[in-house]
Structure formats: C-alpha cells, structure tokens
C-alpha cells in the first residue's frame, strides 16, 4: 500500500516521486514547484481533511485531497 499525501500527518515531510495528474494540472503543480525530487511538508488539514496545505520550498499551497493523491510520494 502506497502512502497517500492526503493521509500524511501534520508536520510530516515526504519526497515527490511521480506526478499522476493530467497535463494542465501537472503543469500547474510543476509551476508551483511540486515536481520530482521536491520535498513536501504537510502544514495543515482543513475540516474533514477535505483540503490540505503543503509547503514546497518557501511556497505554501492549498490543494484538495483528491488532487493531493495524484502526487506519488515516498517517506524521507
């Protein structure tokens, strides 16, 4: 069972291994700095864990759980 980004705990740091998003969402993630090898830190969960806030480099990004799970990750 692979680890899912949306299920990560607050404060957990993980590494991106692959982006499974469709072309334009993938482009957007990349332009935000979410790309292979990037390190992601989970900052906050919205109520019901429907949305999460992550940090990549110095940038904070909010994304919905469904989209977050398109980012394949591995533990650091």
């Amino acid at each position: 069972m692979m680890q899912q980004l949306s299920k990560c705990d607050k404060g957990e740091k993980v590494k991106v291994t692959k982006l499974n998003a469709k072309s334009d969402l993938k482009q957007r993630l990349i332009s935000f700095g979410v790309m292979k090898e990037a390190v992601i830190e989970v900052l906050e969960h919205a109520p019901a864990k429907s949305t999460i806030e992550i940090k990549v480099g110095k940038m904070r990004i909010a994304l919905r759980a469904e989209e977050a799970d398109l980012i394949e990750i591995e533990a650091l």
Partner: protein
Amino acid sequence: MSEIETEVAQKSCPVIANHIKIALVGQPNVGKSMLINSISDAHLHVGNFTGVTVEKSEVLFNYKNFHFTVVDLPGTYAFTDYTIEERVTHDYLCAEGYDLIINVIDSTNLEKNLQLTTELMSMSKKMVIALNMSDEAQKEGIEIDEKYMSELLGIPCIKVSAQTKFGIEDLLEELVNKTKLDKQEAKLVFSEAVEEEIATIIDYLQKHKYKAVNSYRNIAINLLKNNEKTYRRIQQNPIWTELQPILIEASKHVELHHDSDDIKESFAEEYASFNRGIVTEVLKIKKEEPKKSLTEKIDSILIHNIFGIPIFLFFMWSLFQLTFEIGAVPMEYIDGFFGWFGDTIGATISNNDIRSLIVDGIISGVGAVVLFVPNIIILFIGIALLESTGYMSRVAFLLDGFFHKFGLHGQSFIPLVTGFGCSIPAYMSARILKNDRDRLLTLFIISFMSCGARLPVYVLFVGAFFSADMAGNILFAIYLSGALLGLIAAKVLKLTAFKGVDEPFVMEMPKYRLPSFKLIWHTVLTKTLMYLKKAGTFIAAASMLVWFLSNYPKNPILEEQYSIKIEQTHILKEKNLLENRLDEELLQQSYLGKIGKLSEPIFEPLGFDWKMSVALQAGLAAKEVIVSTLGVLYSVGGDVDANNSSLVTAISKNIPFASAVAFIVVIMIYLPCLAASIVFTREAGHIKYFFYLLGFTSVIAYILAFIAYNIALFL
C-alpha cells in the same frame, strides 16, 4: 469599474516623443500593480491574493524625454493557459508588439519566481528584472547579489521595493538604457543532454538557411518544447520532412534523460535545475530561518481545523455589527442635515411646483441614499482588509470542502466575497476560475451575495422593525441567509444546468501582510466617492423622474373638492387628516400610481402595496434607487405625522411586518442592477445567460418571498 484603466496625465514634451512600450510580467501576487503605482502615481487595484488584475491595464507616464506605456498583465505562474487571466498574459506576450519586458520578482521567493523568468528568457525579448520586495527580503536575512545575477542571466537585475519606492529611479534608468541597445541574448543553459539536441537542430537549420525572425536557438528550444505555433510555421517549409525524424530522435533523448514521457515536464525540470544553480550562486541567507514563520504561526490558529470556521464567522459577524452600530452614529446627523437643508432651501423658493421638485424630489431622494454612506464605508473597509491581509485565500482553503459539496470551488469564495462589496468587480474576478462551467456557476450565484448598494435597503428596514441591539444580528442573518441560498442555488444549478467534472483546487497561500493604511484609505475613498457620485447624478435624476411621475398629472377637481372640505372644518386634527387623504388620492391617480396599480396584482400575494411594487421595479436600474424612491413616495404622500419626517418612521408606520420581510427577500435575490447585468452578460459570454439569470432569480425571489410572507403573517 474605474480600476480597469488608469491614465496618468501627461505633460506635453518638447522633444520628439520617444515611446517605450513595456510589458509588466510576473507571477501572481508579487506586487506588479503596486510597482506601477509607485512608478507612475497611478491607482491600480492592489490586493494580497492571486488574481487581482484580471485584465491587462495600461498606464502612461513620462520619464526624462521618454513616454512610457506600461501594460500591467495578469499574474501567471508559468506559460500555461490554465486560467483566462493566464491566457490573456500568454497571448499578449506572444502576439502583441512591445519593446521590452519587466519581469517582476518577489525577492523573498527567488527560486519559484525564476521558473517564469526562465520561460520568458527563452522568448528572446529584451528584458529587465525587477527584484521587488527587496526591503522585505532584507528583513528576512535574504541577500541577493544582483550584479552577479545580472551577469549570470545576461539580464539586468535591479533591486526595488514598490512599498518604499526604493530603486525605482534605477529601474527607470535601466529601462532607458535597455531601449538604446538593439539586442540582448539571455544566457539560459540547459543540461548537457538537451544542449546537445539543441545544437543538432541549430546545425540543421543553419545548413538549410531557414529564414526566421527569432534566433535558431529559440526555434530549436520551441520545437523541443512542442510549441504549437513554431510547429505550424516550420511545417509549411520543405525542410520539415527531413527535420521531423531529427526532432523525434531528439525528443526521445530528452525524455529518456528525464525518465518521463512528458516533454513539458522534462523542460520544467530543466528550468528548475538551472534556477537552483542560479539561486545557489547569488543568494545568501544571513539569518537562520525560524522553524515556523510568522505566517505559519498565524495560520495554525486561523485555519485550525476546528476553530478556523468559527473564527471566520465571528469576523463576518463583527463586520456587520460594526456596520450597523458605528454606522448608526452619524446617520442621525446626516438625516438632520438633509431635513434642515430641505427646509432652508424650500423657504427660498416661492413656486410650489419647483419647491416640491427640489425638496421632495431631489433632496429627499439623494438624502435617503447619502444617509447610508457611513455603513458603506465600514463595509468597504472590512472587504479591503480581507483582500489586503491575505486572509481571503485562507477562507477559500477552509471553505473548499464545504463549497465542494454544493458543487462550487473553494476559489469561488473570492468573487463571492467581492460580491458583498459590488457585483461588478465580483463578476470580473470570477476569471480566476479555470473551468468555464465553474465560472458560469459562480457568476450565477454572485447576485445572491448582497452587494453594498442593497445595504441601505436592509439598514432602513431592519432599523424600522427591530430594536437597535438586535439590528446587527439581523443584518448578519440577512447576509448569511443570502449566502446560504446562493449555495443551495449552486447545488441546484450544478445538478441540472452545469453538470460535469470538478475543477481541481490548487491555490497559493500568500504570506500575511500588514495592510497599508494608504492602500485601504485609497480603495475605500474611491469606492465611497463613486457611491456619492452615483447619488449626485444617477440617483438625483432617478429621484426627479420618480417625483415627476408621482406628481403628475395634476387633478384640480379633486384638489378643489378637498379644499372646500378643509375650509369647512375647524378642528385641526380633521384638517390634517383631510390633507393627508388628498395627498394620498392625488398620488394614487398619478402616473406612478397607475404603474403601481397595474403591477399590484402581481405583487399582491407578497403583501406589497403599490409603492413597494414601484420601488422594487425602480431597483432594477440600481438598488440605491429603491431607497430614494421610497424616500420620495413617502415624503409626498403618506407623511402621517408632520413632525417626524424620517423615512424609517414612515416605513414602520406604513408597511406591515410580513410585507417588509417579503420585500427584503425579493431584494436579496432578484436581479442585480443594470450596470452589473451588463458586466454579467459580458463575462458569461452570451446574452442568453442574462435571460437565464433574469428568469432564475425572478422565479426564486418570487417563490421564496411568497413563503416568507405567509410565514411572517403567522408570527
């Protein structure tokens, strides 16, 4: 709104005009608009969230002997067409004529910002980099060696701060220098594997002496990146047959090198590693970065998964409390002033008709609208704070899960909240939504968010029917139930008209910033002046019209009948009663009375008298007109108690509670004003959507008002 185009007055220049056209490009929220404002003293709208500038706007100014035209383009993270605003920027940069690019960069987040810079560099246009927010970077202990950076990139980099106006002069000087040069080659270096393929393609182009405006290197990169336009052009050339296999081979190599089947992703990685290189060279961090930045500390409270939403609701509740409480203080004086003003002016006019036109028509109409300026100011301050601190994006984050259940997007929150101020900018800011269906859906429910112009109507009615300590709560409840109705309407629309897949929610959370006093002052002042201007022009004209329609045609026979009766009686009370009855009857047989009577059957099930029906119809032009119309109608006719001319009293005496509730429900829901409807139609893209909106809002407004009326009758 006037924020779209700001023109700074030009001084005439004796020397032959040197025009320089500049495209201002940068990622969202790096302070582009603010930079223009500090260069040219223009007043573009500035906020702390993504997507403030949704349309390009031009600012003209002079520096030395040069005429500058700066085109402020919507922020874009990269050269993608993810949202409409990004498409605006991309199309402009590719197709329009301009002399050079200013790439604005947030110095506190260099690496991320360079991602766009590298893409701009591959365009082979003249470019200057403005390292904005350099004061903030310094405070955070970030030091950028801009000289070395200029050298490495082959592009002049200037440290500036739009906030403190630091470095603006240097930037202008560099722009002038840059225009004098005819060419500039940026130094963008890729990985060895990619450089090899680029070299192969360049060789081939050289061998066949391919004619092109852009450099061969540029063409080669574009071909590798699958740039459609470049492909279209080169495919028409005979060399294409031989070039194609070379390109296929080259792409394979690049993809293999990056272990990816997506060439765009591979290039993004190329850019990223180039940028990492630059950042390591030029950037030094002097201070140890704190484990948790201030923004993160604030966030851990404001977007807490349990307390976040209650905190947000508390903020909104406070805003409406303040709107009512503080707003009520100067209202008395304004009301008093217009009463006094009407009496004073009225005393100097001997002609009865003209006096009535001026006092009962213009002064009471305009006065009724001006009365609510304090409330409007407080509401606008609240929205400006929300926009400029960065809290807006947090709320979008908090509400996305909730919004999603109703078929809306978290980012819909931004246009929706703007809608509490005015629907027009709200319709425009819906452009931050990527997907057309989501955008249309949001457009349709923006009018459920009661705009500032509806506030006077609410304040008037709430003040007439509720005690002062309850008023703020009622006001909050009105806005909240409007918003909830909007959500339900969204769900209905999503299930019927706008079915489809959901748009992904991926949004930057900007850093919290202390709102600048000057900025808020300016935003609120502009909006308030606009409101006053509308009161002085449009509303005054509408009041005159309403006055005319309610005073004519005259009926001398009726007047004579009553004047005989009045003369016959000696009791003062009786006299007053008769006078009032005369006024009432005259009003009923006036043009306006006839219009009202005509539409009365339609509104009768909602408990509206003909005056309310008329006010409601007048409100289709602008919501402020409702108040001014009521002001005129009740000052002419139903002035039962001559000692107290206040509109609030008149309303509480003449309108039953249940009718008032139904009236508010209609105002909450029915069509926004004429101007907003026009903008809506433009943003939706087709006139048919306007008729959908008209039908949709009218039907809902009518049904809900009917229900509310019947419930209120029982209370």
